[in-house]
């Protein structure tokens, strides 16, 4: 696939000040690109700094060295061009689903008519059409994440950043949400960067997997799941049955296990 990159991570390191003169090197000298309209998955064992990398992309953390470049200029703080979905529920409980989805557009001055139209479109896209007037507290965990996704997409970001978005969901819901994301990626051509520690999720969603090692987080391998033949397949069962799926999963397992041993 020949695509230009929208997001470049250039020699990025991150050191956290733990106080008392102690420092923690969380991320060390990571470089990779995220291609436009692609799904890039950051995978690795816990403590590999994958969330930190994502947060630096969002502008919620500042790199100690190196830079994150979006659309040609360096990231300096959060902005609407990089929408983020968190693992924890972030629905604004005092607003209905519709008003939640309109939130970003409202604060960015999108006229009311267009706002309503776009909100309705994205609410339908994530399958919440019947719940537009419900409050988030009336929804299940999976539905709340759908609200968060619709809210971010409706704000028209260049990149959708997701930090273990389905980590808090039960298995079957997670699986439905993964299929939904493929559907959304196909329909909206949104570039996505997804952090996960779930191998299946990574293989199913990724056009490219960035595997990070732990303590400190370094780029270990860039893996293209070539067995999918450059297509996205919105049916998880079919992906699992493809030749090469098991092989890739075993390879990632090996990588995970190696890193896990490192950590101990």
């Amino acid at each position, binding site marked *: 696939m020949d695509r230009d990159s929208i997001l470049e991570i250039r020699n990025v390191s991150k050191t956290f000040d733990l106080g008392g003169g102690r420092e923690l090197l969380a991320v060390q000298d990571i470089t990779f690109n995220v291609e436009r309209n692609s799904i890039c998955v950051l995978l690795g064992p816990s403590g590999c700094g994958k969330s930190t990398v994502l947060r630096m992309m*969002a*502008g*919620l953390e500042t790199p100690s060295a190196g830079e994150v470049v979006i659309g040609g200029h360096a990231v300096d703080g*959060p*902005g*609407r061009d*990089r*929408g*983020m979905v*968190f693992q*924890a529920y*972030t629905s*604004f*409980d*005092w607003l209905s689903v519709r008003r939640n989805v309109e*939130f*970003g557009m409202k*604060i*960015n001055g999108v006229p009311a008519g267009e706002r309503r139209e776009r909100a309705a479109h994205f609410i339908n896209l994530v399958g919440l059409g019947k719940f537009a007037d419900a*409050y*988030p*507290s*009336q929804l299940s965990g999976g539905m709340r994440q759908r609200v*968060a996704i619709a*809210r*971010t997409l409706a*704000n028209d970001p260049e990149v959708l*950043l997701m930090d273990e978005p389905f980590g808090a969901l039960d298995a079957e819901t997670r699986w439905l949400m993964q299929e939904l994301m493929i559907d959304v990626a196909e329909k909206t051509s949104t570039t996505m960067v997804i952090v996960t520690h779930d191998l299946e999720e990574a293989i199913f969603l990724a056009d490219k997997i960035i595997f990070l090692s732990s303590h400190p987080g370094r780029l270990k391998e860039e893996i293209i799941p070539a067995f999918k033949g450059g297509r996205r397949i919105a049916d998880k069962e079919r992906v699992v049955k493809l030749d090469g799926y098991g092989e890739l999963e075993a390879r990632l397992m090996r990588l995970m296990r190696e890193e896990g041993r490192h950590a101990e």
Partner: protein
Amino acid sequence: MSPDSRSKRFFQLRHPVGRRQRFLSAIGIWVVFFAIWVFATSTGMVNELLVPAPQKVFATTYQLFIERGFTGDVLISIGRVLGAFAMACAVAVPLGVLMGSFPAVEAIFAPFVSAWRYLPAPSFIPILLMWFGTGEAPKLALLFIGVIFFLITLIMDHTKNVREELVETALTLGAGRSTVVMKVVFPAVLPDIVVAMRQMLAMAWTYLVIAEIVASTTGIGAMMMRARRFLKTDEILSGIIVIGALGLLFDLAFAALHRWMFPYLRKKR
């Protein structure tokens, strides 16, 4: 009889009680209380002058309202509480939210506010009387001082507890600092602010009575001090009952306000 009530004990270890049992238990404790009171007064165990019978207290309460213009005193007291409380909220809500949102604002005001919290408000009464005389001002000032510093601290703490992800979500949607505070932090903390206000309103009643007992010719507390001079224990007890009833009433009103303002907190399931 439901089938599972068969083996149910009255005192179940850590087992929630049903509506019926809860209701009967609540009534029961009051019945016991009044029974002891009636028994003690009717048998002459206690001096009737110091402890009037409950029926006499209720009759006096009725009389106070109907024949003796007690309603005026009650309204004055309510006005004082609400007036001073509104002023305290007008300062505490914005300041508390700002302190909880911006550590820099907290760094400025927290050392000041927390020092004041350790100064008991009634200790200001003598100086307030000297500054403001005996009008409404010293009473309002006492209530204001008594409530505001706790209110600021409570609201600040609640504001700090607004989850970081909500703030970060708003930031990545393109919100600026003031938008985050106004459109996310404030609405997120508002239910807790109303709860804090409810708690502090109860405290405002306490200070009201102190203010009215020490230096006032009007209000519920003043009526009770007048009654003391004429050994009217029934009127004193009436005053206590009325204050209690008003406190309860305002608490229920706040609870209703909370339900009305925040329908989304009600679980449908």
